[in-house]
């Protein structure tokens, strides 16, 4: 295993790490968006229940 990638390690590893970060961020943001919408609906239903 040549981790230095023949002298191109900085370029190669940066690209792979960046790809991993993008995939994690996409998953995290998708979950966050769902959680926020769900929580807003919960709050609205609770507020409607309290007012009635």
């Amino acid at each position: 295993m040549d981790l230095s990638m023949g002298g191109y390690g900085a370029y190669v590893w940066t690209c792979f790490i960046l790809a991993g970060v993008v995939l994690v961020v996409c998953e995290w943001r998708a979950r966050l968006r769902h959680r926020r919408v769900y929580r807003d609906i919960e709050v609205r239903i609770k507020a409607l229940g309290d007012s009635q």
Partner: protein
Amino acid sequence: MWKFIHQLASPPHFYRIAQILIPWLAVPGLLLIGYGTYAGLFLAPMDYQQGDAFRIIYVHVPSAYLSMLAYMTMAVSAGIGLIWRIKLSHAVAAAAAPLGAWFTFLALATGSIWGKPMWGTWWEWGDPRLTSELIMLFLYFGYMALRGAIDDTSKADRASAVLALVGAVNVPIIHFSVEWWSSLHQGPTLIKEGGPAMDPGMLYPLLAMILGFTLVFGALLLRRVRAEVLFRERRTRWVKDLVLSGGN
């Protein structure tokens, strides 16, 4: 078949089906990405011209391919929503845009990083492939900004759908730019006459990465569409029942 498609277009049905499908796409996708990463970094033979720098192809090509796939998903869904007024289609289009923007950014960033050791420059404004890919990033930004600027969801759907459809002309330009014009970017490697111009030891990890990225994109898209459906249907009975029952 038509009954299944008709049912799938129903938001509550789609919401449930998507939750079941997500792990079935994500798990094989991540396994393929794991294999492709290991094989691409350590098993694939070194390129005789580019040395180990060519290994950037294993993240650059899948992200560039997904940047176009996401755009086509967005444009086709927006078109279907515009013509047949299927609400779910607009939700798919809205969900595809941020993912497409992320993968376009990744394609541009990895391409730029690859360009530095190979071409001696991070960026070349005169290059048609680079410029048309950057235009696509701006189209994604424009689409999202337009959606965000209009409060009424149905008006935002229609206006952004027109933009998505007009911008779709850029996708074939990106794909064929290396054939139509003189470019620093290399020509097609996978889709060309006579089959892929790669050693099988290099090719199989690349195909695994492309398939893995596509499956993970599918899972991410479904997750985003679920959130979009929940938002659009927030005042409906089924969403109220879902939240009151503690369902997800």
